[in-house]
């Protein structure tokens, strides 16, 4: 059964990088799970990947708001960063579910 993972975007410093992703890295995500970001900061953030800010979600996340869901389809590490604040970085570790045992 899929889980819904949540990554907090937390303000933690007065100097850049202003915000941090927590947890980071996000481990144990299986194919079929969902991931959302909760922006606990007072400014917008926009997780995306190199060359594609809309990789996960179509718009930036408003302050004190949460994002749409993202469902990865490949078992791989996804390195991402905030498209508005490129020094804020994170990783999502996607793993394939273990195969069912032979019947």
């Amino acid at each position, binding site marked *: 059964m899929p*889980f819904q993972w949540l990554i907090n975007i937390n303000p933690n410093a007065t100097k850049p990088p202003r915000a941090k992703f927590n947890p980071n890295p996000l481990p*144990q995500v299986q*194919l*079929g799970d969902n991931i*959302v970001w909760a922006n606990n900061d007072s400014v917008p953030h926009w997780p995306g990947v190199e060359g594609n800010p809309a990789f*996960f979600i179509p718009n930036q996340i408003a302050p004190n708001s*949460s994002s749409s*869901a993202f469902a990865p389809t490949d078992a791989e590490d996804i390195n991402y960063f905030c498209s508005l604040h490129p020094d804020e970085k994170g990783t999502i570790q996607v793993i394939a579910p273990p195969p069912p045992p032979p019947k």
Partner: protein
Amino acid sequence: MTMSQAVNVDSTQRNERGCRKEFRAHMKNRISALLATCWLLLLLAFVPRADAQGPQIVNCPNPLAGQPLLTVPEIKSENGRLKALLVLGDNDKRIMWDSGSTPRCATQFMRFFHGRSLLKPGPEDPLFSKSDPIPGPTLRARVGDLIEVQFENLINTQHFINSLDRGDGGCDITFAGSGKKSTNLSADKMPNCLHGSSTVNVHFHGTHTTPNTTGDNVLLFIRPAQAPLPADGQKAINDFFTACEKTGISPSYWTDMPSPWQALQKQWVTNYDNSAPYKGQSPPKGGPPVLPKDMQLSPVNQTEIANRMWPQYHIGYFPYCFRVPTYDPAKVKMGQSPGTHWYHAHKHGSTALNVANGMTGAFIIEGKYDDDLNKFYKSNPNWKFQEQVLVIQQLTTVLNLTVPGGGPGSRSVPPLSVNGRRSPVITMQPNQVQLWRLINGAERDAALFQGFFARGSATACTGTPTATCVHWKQTAQDGVQFKYSNYVGTEDSQINVAPANRADLLVQAPSTEGTYDLKVQAGLCRQNCASQTETLLTVVVKGSAISPAMPFISNESDFPTFPAFLADIPAGDVVVRRDLVFHDNAPLLEINGKQFNDHVINQAMLLNSTEEWKVSNLDATKEHPFHIHVNPFQITEVFQPQSADAKDPKNPCYADPTKPETWKPCHSPEKDFIWWDAFAIPASREDKLSSCTKLSDCPANIQKYTSCTQGDNAVCTVTIPGYYKMRSRFVDYPGQFVLHCHILTHEDRGMMELIEVVPDTTIYAHH
């Protein structure tokens, strides 16, 4: 309630401006507009700013280890009133679990109901704050009671994905990423898409009451609270309840509500409009709002109120007050049927996710049915008659419709649970009879009984009345009691508890100790579709044997008296006949070729009229459970084209694919029709035709049921629809409400109709 109280104006804003334009055009006369929103700013003042937690992986409880069944705390009516505080909250300590061979378990935020009686001071039951994701409190009332529910939506939206109806994209979007690309996997369009799951209302499923104002009104949008209920708000709600107790019925107009309550809601809705973020931008302190005018809620409410309609949008708090009427021919044509009913969240677009989170609860309405059962089973002081309220759920936080390899048996379909636990244990004494009230509150799957299996045995021991086993007989369906004639033949019958169905069972333990697993097939249909067998619950028979043994009721005089208002609806009373056809016309989920449209009344019935409907299903692997609010219906005919008889060319009941005149049941009851309020429409049958490979060559009489593939190996397939016929009376309560498929993602994605019962009086002025 009127047209403009229609559902789903909640919509919004898809990603492009063009959509908004189209939407606006669509709304023309109604300012409705919509939507939007993520306004979390205000919430922050109220909601603790703790770091939200994702799932924490934990060890899975072993279902075979035998966790005892949890009894859900109850809120009981007293002296003709049920008065409850019902809170929608969330908790991050709920245990999820998986089915299959590689279970994963975790604690995870879930949204669920909890609450307490307002007739007695005191805290709510501590069970609600523990880790098991139990259903909401069981409401227990009596026929004739006034039902008062102070509902509070206190969801912390920071814990749930874009769960407010949002300004920067209305539909919940599930993206699948691959490499540097991402794709939106959903072709669904507002309002028939999953969206806005922190906006809710409460459906009192099975009640015969008004669908308007503060009754069983599922056309409301109650958004999360911005702040704790202020003292003047509580006073206004108390004043409203006092007024409702005085009149004994729901109010007719918004202006009947205490004026401080009208003012507070107006202020909260305006605050919402002024503070909602839009496309990632929040309004500055003191304004102006960033939400476009046509997406603000306040103008919609104000227009409705000005037109003597009930406003759609409410923030945080809503007081329900309605009566479940006693049958009295001088006042009502139908009474509330005493029985096993339930309540659940019902906001179009998030009903499935909300019910999957656990926003369900039992609503037991007692009456003479209970008195009669108790009279018999309490006639011997040695007998111990116990009742179990059993709410089946399918708990998950993710309705991922696009999971690769999804489907029953895969990780994407949650297993069934009962009162928040997988395969819990019910303990019975030898020779005991219990009353089980089963409620299927799953968002997706039916539970088709496979019988009780003695632990370790591969075959069911039910089916032979004399076998040492747990046996059952059914006394009621969907909260409506059986006539004795329908009860007698039900011992160990194969019950299909489809989503929204309820079944009352007398369950009898054997005379000796033992462990018995009740196995069910969980899935979308009975035959030939992917399903999985699960142990729904386990009965452990132990302790001293009850003597004399408690029997099943075997005399009609001991069986609950059948109320006059539940007598058969005669064929001669039918004034209108209709056809409804359910079809998963992928990717569109349709009734009569259309998706739900919040501006269209699909069916209008005259108040107090009687109708007969033929409800058909074109899908071979899904039995869409048809459900209609307010009035139950009687089933007079059921045609299952996939039944063994209908498939056997040698059987007189054979449904011949080339002869549509044979597509009907050959046996139907002539009287004592059973009442239901949800019925899984039998699946269709698809037969390949050997006589033709091109549609124009196929027999003319079946061409409209036939489709052919193209190319060298073209094949033509005829679809024989499954169907049932029902009769219903649309009595006592005019207003707008809905009918829909109770596979709840189907409802959310468009398999729903807005319908209206229209008063049979005319205001006629001839000048």
